[in-house]
């Protein structure tokens, strides 16, 4: 056997692991922007699908997103190597091959492979109409999402519980304190312990892994829209896999292939649009009849490539879907409490935001949260500012500075101080001094403006016994309030705050 040839599989696995660590580190350091804005944005800027769909939907070209041309260039030379070597979702899925389970099943029909092209079609067509709802299927978006909205907060909660438990052991005290100072706030920011909808990204991850039971890398083969885009480009890639005529037809490469694209009926040839250049077939081949060599000719059409009818049907479904999503009352679109980050306008945001969630990872107070109910189906995964979970820190503009597509504008602090997110309104039926007649000035105390937007009115109260005292009643000054929401966050009334920031 010539198994002693260069071990490509081992190299690939090492590279995948290395990239996974890099993705993790980039995601982690986003919280405090430890390595600067460029590093934090890098993952999103690498995805050509995000770049393309975002440019179409927003009708603007963001310079940073041109970085994704590097991935297109890479694909033009060696095909979908991104999928096999770099993509964090691909690497995660490789941890769960479920091979023995798959063997027992009837293989999934190849016609499913058209799925990713059809999803890609739907995304790009919707983008043409300014809609980016489906962009959340981009693997980079999914990666940041799953980490920011699912795994990250869950680990944070686990770490918090662990700390609480150990804090009862006196001799652990100094070790625990050291651990806490070392890991917070960079790795486990305190502000996002209470993230909303943590179950959703977590379920998405579990679902993607579960699909691996049906077929290895099910997501990459049949669904991934970025895989579809890179697959299209791979057809004209320079390097392609070739099997020469002396092949023994031993079928080993066929069963080694994680994307199942090696076809015995075509002399063990593969489709470059499906091949992730994992090199497992090279390793499995007892001879040396498999080569990856330059070939200028584009690959031919496959039977499962989507036909005209499928594309037209997808287009019709997409347009119908868009019409449904866009149908809403002309007035009062969305919730009265749908607040957006400073520097984002609601309508703009929907056609600019790539749903990546970097803003939520970097928000130091946990004010930015996944919106689902507030903005409707169309705005699923867009950032919403929820003052009761966190306030917008007066001297922070990290969300805008980090947003790779300027869906949140990069405001200077001066601009941010003047940006009106919403306006606070006091509910006098719930406000402690107004409703209960007892002292509370927390909202006034917390208001960060140099000239406070909340003022206190002194009112003499005469008790039944004739004695008097002065009650301080808070008022919001409409011309000053910028809706930072610290009053709503800190309001001691339990449950819903007695002062709430409304959209204006």
């Amino acid at each position, binding site marked *: 056997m010539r198994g002693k040839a260069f071990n490509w599989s081992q190299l690939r696995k090492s590279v995948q692991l290395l990239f996974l660590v890099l993705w993790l580190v980039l995601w982690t350091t986003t919280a405090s922007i430890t390595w600067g804005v460029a590093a934090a944005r890098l993952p999103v800027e690498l995805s050509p699908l995000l770049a393309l769909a975002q440019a179409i939907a927003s009708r603007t070209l963001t310079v940073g997103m041109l970085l994704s041309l590097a991935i297109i260039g890479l694909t033009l030379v060696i095909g979908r190597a991104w999928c096999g070597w770099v993509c964090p979702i691909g690497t995660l899925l490789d941890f769960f091959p479920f091979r023995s389970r798959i063997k027992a099943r009837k293989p999934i029909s190849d016609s499913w492979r058209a799925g990713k092209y059809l999803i890609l079609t739907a995304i790009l067509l919707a983008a043409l109409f300014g809609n980016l709802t489906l962009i959340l299927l981009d693997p980079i978006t999914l990666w940041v999402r799953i980490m920011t909205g699912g795994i990250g907060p869950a680990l944070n909660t686990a770490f918090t519980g662990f700390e609480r438990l150990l804090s009862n052991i006196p001799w652990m005290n100094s070790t625990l304190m050291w651990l806490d100072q070392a890991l917070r706030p960079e790795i486990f920011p305190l502000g996002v312990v209470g993230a909303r909808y943590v179950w959703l990204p977590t379920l998405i991850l579990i679902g993607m892994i579960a699909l691996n039971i049906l077929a290895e890398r099910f997501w990459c083969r049949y669904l991934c829209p970025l895989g579809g885009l890179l697959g299209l480009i791979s057809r004209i890639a320079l390097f392609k896999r070739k099997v020469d005529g002396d092949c023994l037809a031993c079928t080993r490469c066929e069963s080694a292939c994680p994307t199942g694209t090696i076809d015995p009926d075509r002399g063990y040839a593969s489709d470059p649009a499906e091949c992730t250049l994992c090199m497992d077939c090279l390793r499995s081949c007892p001879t040396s009849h498999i080569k990856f060599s330059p070939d200028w000719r584009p690959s031919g059409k496959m039977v499962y490539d989507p036909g005209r009818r499928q594309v037209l049907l997808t287009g019709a479904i997409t347009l119908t879907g868009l019409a449904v999503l866009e149908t809403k009352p002309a007035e009062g679109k969305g919730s009265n409490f749908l607040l957006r980050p400073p520097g984002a306008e609601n309508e703009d945001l929907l056609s600019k935001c790539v749903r990546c969630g970097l803003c939520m990872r970097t928000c130091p107070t946990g004010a930015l949260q996944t919106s689902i109910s507030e903005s409707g189906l169309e705005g699923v995964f867009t950032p919403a500012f929820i003052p009761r979970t966190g306030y917008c820190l007066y001297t922070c503009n990290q969300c805008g500075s980090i947003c790779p597509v300027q869906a949140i504008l990069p405001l200077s602090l001066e601009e941010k101080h003047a940006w009106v997110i919403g306006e606070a309104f006091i509910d006098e039926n719930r406000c402690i001094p107004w409703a209960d007649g007892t002292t509370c000035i927390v909202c*006034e105390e917390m208001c960060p403006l140099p000239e406070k937007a909340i003022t206190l009115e002194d009112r003499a109260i005469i008790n039944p016994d004739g004695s008097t005292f002065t009650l301080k009643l808070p008022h919001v000054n409409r011309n000053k309030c910028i809706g930072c929401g610290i009053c709503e966050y800190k309001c001691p009334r339990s449950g819903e705050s007695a002062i709430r920031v409304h959209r204006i």
Partner: protein
Amino acid sequence: MKEISRRKALKVILAGSTAIAATPLLAACQRAAEDLTQGSSPSITNTPFGAVTDTPVAETPGDSTEVPATLPDLVVARNAEPESLVQAALTAIGGMERFVPRGGWVIIKPNICTCYYPYEYATTTNPWVVGALVKLCFEAGAGKVQVMDYPFGGSADQAYQSSGIGEQVEANGGEMVQMAYFKFKEVKIENALGLRSAEIYEDVFSADTVIDVPIAKHHGMSRLTLGMKNLMGLITNREQIHRDFGNRLTDLATKIRPKLTVVDAVRILTDNGPTGGNLADVKKLDTLIVSPDIVAADSYAATLFGLQPEDLDYIRVGAKSGLGRSDLGGLNIREINLAG
């Protein structure tokens, strides 16, 4: 090879989901453990603050008979750089040795309430005042000097940096500590006027000395935030204090007993406090007030704003309940003018 990776993966999932699922369990364990500690050793929560020391210390005004008669109850230093004010005031009050045992653990609690502004805005304690105190603690033989606050605007990390306090403390060999949320433990307050329990940072009961270093500034409800109010940075359920403020703040101050209160009035904030942000509200007084009596220190500080001690709820209640003295006329006050 493949099977190993699957097994590994399963382990990771199992461990991860167990950890997540276990969190409510852990919380329950913690509650149980807390009940246990409170049940079996009430001494932890009941220990009078700072009792573990063998140096002569005036912990409460009641102890003042033990202090040599020549030492003043309160020292005011004026008209010099912050470090010189600290040096002069501490010397006059009997030296830092009076408050810090050799090898002792000192916690300094400045007011670092937000990360919004640098020290010129008078919203956070002057960094050189804090730095000089750290230095004096070490010169008095302290083993460990920690400085901490729990800001309500921004993270501790950011506030330590923006206030400039982090830099001065570290330059003098002190340690900035980010207060860990798990160290806030519920403490019962006996004979409370209004606040029956509070979640207090447990280290303040373990340390040998706590030094309270507020900046004197305006506050919407209590009119001024000074030494007593600065103690609120050591608890978590702060919003609860705002009802029935005078009584509850006095309760808190009977539980957390700083051996020394240093009121920074190098710059004072006269309006739009406690958050500030307007330089027009800042007045430079170059003044520092030092006293082992927290009520006395606050009382004197009130006069800097043209107020009488009785104008402030918590001073009234504090004096009445015997926490300290507000009768400035009856106190032995030493005024030092360092000008020229």
